[in-house]
């Protein structure tokens, strides 16, 4: 039988750690697949409880889990799938106060969040701690995935989006809707990128933004380059510590 990974690679995954920020639509496939593949330590950060409106796409949570903290519901599923994985739960909001400490405890960070304030916070904290960061986003029938890896000279999320959209300009998932299968597919693409980062194998999506339109099932790729003027990862960074991201995004957090 052919192996998915060499014994050395499987050992490497068992010794690796990944922080999944958000145990919702994108976090569900990411966490499940990393646990299945044998990533040794998985951190889950989410402060929400399971709501019935999550269940149309967040398959880490089942109907009897309504009202339960998402990280607890998720941890139970991952342990049942692979008891050899250590699941660490962080039922807190990720903030400028705790982000650096939390992120520094993991090899790779996966941003499975649905608001701009947390995206900028994760980005800046990952650049400051030198952690590769897999990014994904979904909107209605469309999604995108990329990798920001400060170890390889960027680019970072701010090189792609230097400033957040004006408050209210981009509708939230609750306002715009999302087809339930989409975060499953995008999260799976993200999980593959995590495995490549952990194993240092293959060609990752660093510097490549993969865009998917599922109504036509078309995929496109856009090159992203590091912006030398980037205030976080540029040649002369002006942002060297975490800021107030709610204020930066004009209070457009959720």
């Amino acid at each position, binding site marked *: 039988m052919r192996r*998915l990974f060499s014994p050395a690679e499987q050992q490497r995954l068992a010794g690796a750690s990944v922080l999944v920020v958000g145990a919702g639509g994108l976090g569900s496939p990411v966490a499940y697949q990393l646990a299945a593949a044998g990533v040794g330590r998985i951190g889950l950060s989410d402060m929400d409880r399971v709501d019935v409106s999550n269940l149309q796409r967040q398959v880490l949570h089942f109907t009897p889990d309504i009202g339960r903290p998402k990280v607890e519901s998720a941890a139970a599923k991952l342990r049942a799938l692979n008891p050899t994985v250590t699941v660490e739960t962080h039922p807190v909001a990720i903030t400028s106060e705790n982000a650096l400490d939390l992120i520094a405890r993991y090899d790779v960070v996966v941003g499975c969040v649905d608001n701009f304030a947390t995206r900028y916070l994760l980005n800046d904290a990952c650049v400051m701690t030198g952690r590769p960061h897999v990014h994904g986003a979904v909107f209605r029938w469309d999604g995108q995935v990329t990798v920001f890896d400060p170890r390889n000279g960027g680019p970072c999320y701010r090189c792609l989006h230097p400033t957040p959209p004006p408050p209210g300009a981009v509708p939230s998932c609750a*306002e715009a809707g999302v087809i339930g299968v989409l975060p499953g597919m995008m999260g799976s693409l993200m*999980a593959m990128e995590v495995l490549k980062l952990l194993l240092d194998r293959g060609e990752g999506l660093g510097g490549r933004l993969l865009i998917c339109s599922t109504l036509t*099932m078309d995929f496109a790729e856009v090159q992203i380059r590091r912006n030398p003027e980037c205030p976080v990862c540029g040649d002369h960074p002006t942002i060297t510590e975490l800021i107030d991201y709610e204020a930066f995004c004009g209070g457009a957090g959720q």
Partner: protein
Amino acid sequence: MKLTEEQIRRYSRHIILPEVGGRGQRRILEASVVLGGLGAAGSVAAMYLAAAGVGRITLWDPAPVTEADLAAAVAYTVDKVGQNRAAAAAEVLRAINPDVTVQVAASEAEAGAGIEPGGVVLLSAGEWRPLHDRAIREGARVVACGVHGAEGAFTVLQPGGPCLACLPPAVLQEAGLWPEEPENPPLAPVAGVVGLGAATEVIKLILGVGVPLAGRLLRYEGWSASFRDQSLAVSGGCPVCGA
């Protein structure tokens, strides 16, 4: 059928989409999908179709859940090893969404009896040709997916072609669509990408929105993160789809 208050909350992210709405969600709740093959790609697709509210789901796979399956098939758990795959998946689907009527087919013929004209069948790599042929002959659409290692593919087959019967077996085999290759097991995220790509096509077919992936084999290779489109030409004179 009128949506209940609980259903309006549960499917709110769908109902708000212009392509779905209350009418589309009712269509999903009234739809019937037959799934043949519940390996990593088929079983994760089943989870998402149940979450989306597909009203009747018929599951068919004679194989038991093995320990090796757990390296990629996230629908299963350690305590299900040794149980039939369809029976194990059915329990999870019911826990995800009690709106869904899940049937475990006892035979391929029983699964075939669940096929409706205009309905949708999702097949993942395996010996499911009789199910496919019956579906196409009865006017149903088939979404097929398969994975070997870090490579996977999915496509839509329909009456009028092309269908699996008129495509060269070498093409299907090379793409991982057929047969199942236990000696080359799927990588978990790759099974997620193609299984959920296939599930997306199922939802599009139920709703009648977008452009179905017919005549195109979409291939994903995980280590390079690349997608490749292979166009599927009909050879003519196909006894199954009539193309």
